[in-house]
């Protein structure tokens, strides 16, 4: 194993300098944008839950499934038309944290790798960003499920 060289005094001083000079993110503006856009996305989601509960005669818990699919479709359409990335410059986490962000990560990857063909492009690259969410979600759920199954005995 290569040893990690200690930073020289010059390097340490430089790191300190760039930390001092780093322009701050627009914390307040970003936070407000994320809160209001995220809230709005969830309100739209709630509207679809109510809509599907009414027209499909479903209990609200089950109506959230088609509502999620609808929100994913909206995220996909916005991405396909090149609008999502522009909105997300402002909305930030407000669009990324709801399922719209999940849709965006998959649709943007599929679009981007279209040129590499159906198999090595779209097919294998579609999960390039969302893969880690699915992987760690499944790993967590597996152990949670295992613990539950063991405790039940």
């Amino acid at each position, binding site marked *: 194993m290569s040893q990690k060289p200690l930073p020289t005094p010059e390097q340490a001083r430089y790191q300190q300098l760039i930390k001092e000079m780093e322009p701050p993110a627009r914390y307040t503006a970003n*936070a407000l944008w994320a809160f209001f856009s995220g809230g709005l996305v969830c309100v739209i989601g709630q509207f679809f839950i109510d809509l599907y509960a009414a027209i499909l005669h479903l209990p609200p818990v089950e109506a959230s499934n088609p509502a999620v699919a609808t929100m994913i479709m909206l995220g996909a359409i916005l991405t396909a038309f*090149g609008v999502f990335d522009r909105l997300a410059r402002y909305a930030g986490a407000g669009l990324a944290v709801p399922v719209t962000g999940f849709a965006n990560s998959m649709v943007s990857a599929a679009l981007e790798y279209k040129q590499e063909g159906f198999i090595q492009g779209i097919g294998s690259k579609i999960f390039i960003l969302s893969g880690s969410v699915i992987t760690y979600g499944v790993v*967590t759920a597996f152990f949670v499920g295992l613990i539950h199954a063991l405790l039940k005995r």
Partner: protein
Amino acid sequence: MRIIWSTYLAAFLVGGLICLAGQVIYDRTKLTMGHILTGMVILGGILGGLGLYDPLIKFAGGGASMPIISFGNSLAKGAISEAGKTGPIGILTGMFELTSTGITAAIIFGFLAAIVCRSKG
């Protein structure tokens, strides 16, 4: 169609706060959005295992079921409920029971979008 305005208010506040939390972590740390979303899914899985997330969905509706935390919660719940019925093998069969809508929809729309459109750059 029955609209309960207090649910909408709760959805707005809870959903907004979850997104706000993601934004604050993004701005205050060097983590990428991918790191934060993965963390949220893991959190959702754990909360789901403890049975703490469903009460929030009951309270805030879309405010809790739209954010990605709910994806982790649904994965865990699918695994747990199927394991309850068929034993440990149910963890494998039930994993995607509740989340298949989201994953399938995203794959299908991603595929269709890639056929019809191209990246605008």
